[in-house]
């Protein structure tokens, strides 16, 4: 159910690792918890993030949620069209709703992330 080629954080972000590049967004589980997304705040290109740092906020009508960097890296690209149309997060969370692209500066920070199966187990246990 969750794409096998992605890695996942306990804070419900996903990352697609390609060499030393990573593309980051939030998972389908996260967007369901939020409800209808109406507002998104993302960092500027060049921002240096450490794994676990907040890199922005996503808001639904009823809730505010912080976004946490799953890896350590530098922000290379920001999905500006998504900021203008944040509801895409609800309809295509793993694809068109990618949020930032980073240069991974600490490759070992990828190791502690979950694979699809482990992530599915995590959300199954959270649902109880």
């Amino acid at each position: 159910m969750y794409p096998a080629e992605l890695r996942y954080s306990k804070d419900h972000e996903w990352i697609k690792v390609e060499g030393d590049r990573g593309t980051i967004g939030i998972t389908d589980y996260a967007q369901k918890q939020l409800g209808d997304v109406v507002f998104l705040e993302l960092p500027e290109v060049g921002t240096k993030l450490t794994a676990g740092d907040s890199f922005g906020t996503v808001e639904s009508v009823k809730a505010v949620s912080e976004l946490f960097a799953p890896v350590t890296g530098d922000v290379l690209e920001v999905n500006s069209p998504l900021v203008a149309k944040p509801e895409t997060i609800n309809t295509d969370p793993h694809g068109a709703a990618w949020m930032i692209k980073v240069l991974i500066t600490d490759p070992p920070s990828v190791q502690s992330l979950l694979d699809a199966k482990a992530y599915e187990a995590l959300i199954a246990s959270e649902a109880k």
Partner: protein
Amino acid sequence: MVAFGGWEMPVEYSGLIAEHMAVRRGAGLFDVSHMGEIEVEGDAAQTFLQRVTSNDVARLTDGQAQYSALPLPTGAPADDVIVYRKAAGRFLLVVNAGNLDKDWQWLQSQSPQGCALRDASEETALLALQGPRAQEIVQPLTSLPLAGIGYYHFAQGELDGHSVTLSRTGYTGEDGFEIFVAAASAEPLWMRLLEAGRDKGLLPCGLGARDTLRLEARMCLYGNDMDETTTLVEAGLGWIVSTDPAKGDFPGRAILEQQKKNGAPRKLVGFEVTGRGIARHGYPVYVGGQAVGTVTSGTFAPFLQKSIGLCYLPATGAATRTEFQVDIRGRRVEARVVPTPFYRRTR
């Protein structure tokens, strides 16, 4: 499902925005059975209610209701309520779920005489069917001519075989009905209404949409926009305070009369966020760099597509178009006072 006023209630069924828009464009169905119902009956029922509510009960005719409040000696409300006159000497008070116990104690403390109070909440369910298509959906299920029930009027009859009181009231800013029914009939009636409205776009709606709808219509939420520290005039509810000589005395009358005449020190105003962000309950409000209070209610309004809210400003600086700032999680964001209601239905 979340805990709300001592009850477990759904925040949303299919999505907050879809539910909100269904009510604005078609119809939505809410289970608001958590509300409290207190019957006030007896020869002196009206006399008692005149003494404990802010609005003029004498203006009601049989089958008519009015928005009102239970004022305290400070002029602040213990609760906002709706008073229903079924007949002479037979009244119903509908109160907020979270205030039922408090309201009951308060009413008892006001020494009702010549009338008896009865808490009918446990046995009474309340469903609200709201939206421009509400009447169209309900009419086939009843022989009551709904077009004959005016706004803030009600009638008793049968709805799909269940004995009900149908009241043309609501908390959404749209046309619609609140349907009082015996608790045992709630579930079958709920299912029947959903079925009857299915091909007309009726959606079940939760607490999330209930809040965004009422805020767009500038309807107060007790506990957020007013409480025991805010007078009815400060909350913008001077219009439900009767200072007619015939109304007689009630707690807080002198203060409220004075405030209606001379103004109150602060005022609940509606605002729009003109910068980037969503103002929410509890966020600090600044005027000219000075902290003046907090946002009492705030959200992203799905129909209006903007961030709106309510807050108290000093009366000297609360005029429409006044600019001020809301602290949104550490960032000062520009906002502006706007006239309310933010949304008004086209008749």
